């Protein structure tokens, strides 16, 4: 250890709240487990925080919630789309590879972005280039390449850039 970390009461507040909530869900919100969960939610981050690297934190939580809701709606819509394509004949399918230029560099927003791309508009992220500038994406049915790239960038990357402020 080259430098001693200063002691912080809540090194990862979001994770503490999440840990407490998951503990409550697993134990049906009983009073004893509320206390026990709170103890765990305070002690475990003390032990774990020095092991993990600094990660980006969402700077705009309300925007992040909005993004999550929109993602859920998009998942339903794109499922309908994929189901339609699956039930059509294979010959009408136009699969393709595309490459999406990336503006985000930070690992956490990048993971959320690639996961959103995989879950939503008929696309699966396949490979990330080494310099984190390009994302290779496989599309189930491609009509217009530029329009799809623009859709992905506007709909998923721009809000994430705003949320994480990078």
């Amino acid at each position, binding site marked *: 250890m080259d430098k001693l970390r200063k002691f912080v009461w809540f090194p990862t507040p979001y994770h503490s709240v999440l840990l407490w909530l998951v503990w409550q869900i697993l134990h049906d919100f009983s009073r004893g487990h509320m206390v026990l969960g709170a103890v765990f939610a305070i002690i475990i981050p003390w032990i774990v925080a020095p092991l993990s690297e600094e990660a980006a934190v969402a700077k705009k939580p309300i925007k992040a919630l909005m993004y999550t809701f929109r993602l859920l709606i998009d*998942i339903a819509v*794109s499922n309908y789309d994929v*189901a339609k394509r699956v039930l059509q004949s*294979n010959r009408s*399918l136009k699969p393709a590879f595309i490459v999406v230029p990336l503006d985000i560099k930070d690992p956490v927003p990048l993971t959320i972005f690639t996961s959103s791309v995989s879950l939503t508009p008929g696309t699966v*992220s*396949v*490979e990330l280039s080494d310099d984190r500038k390009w994302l290779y994406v496989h599309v189930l049915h491609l009509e217009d390449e530029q329009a799809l790239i623009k859709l992905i960038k506007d709909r998923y990357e721009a809000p994430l850039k705003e949320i994480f402020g990078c």
Partner: protein
Amino acid sequence: MTVFLEVVVSVLLVFGAIVMLIGSIGLAKLPDYFTRLHAPTKASTLGVACILVASMIFFSVQLGHVNLKEVLITMFLLITAPVAAHMLGKAGLHYKVKMTDSTQNQHLAKKAYLQQNPDDK
């Protein structure tokens, strides 16, 4: 259990099962590896989410208190499905699986493969 909730649970169960079946049909019939990757990641995740929500409503009514345990499985599947799909896609590129001839931009796949294995020209 009221009639309304029973109808909601039944519709969610059957809808989820149909969506999962469509995902599996896609897995069985689509022409090549990368198109087959689409069906399970999207359809199966939504289908299992529907069934888990139905189960959540059912047990909340039956046990008489709010039961959110199934939300954990749903969130876990929603988070891990794209990660698994990404790893499967990488493995497919590495394995040089055959693509259908109608696939556009096949040179991009080759480029991504060369980046994984720079020595293999």
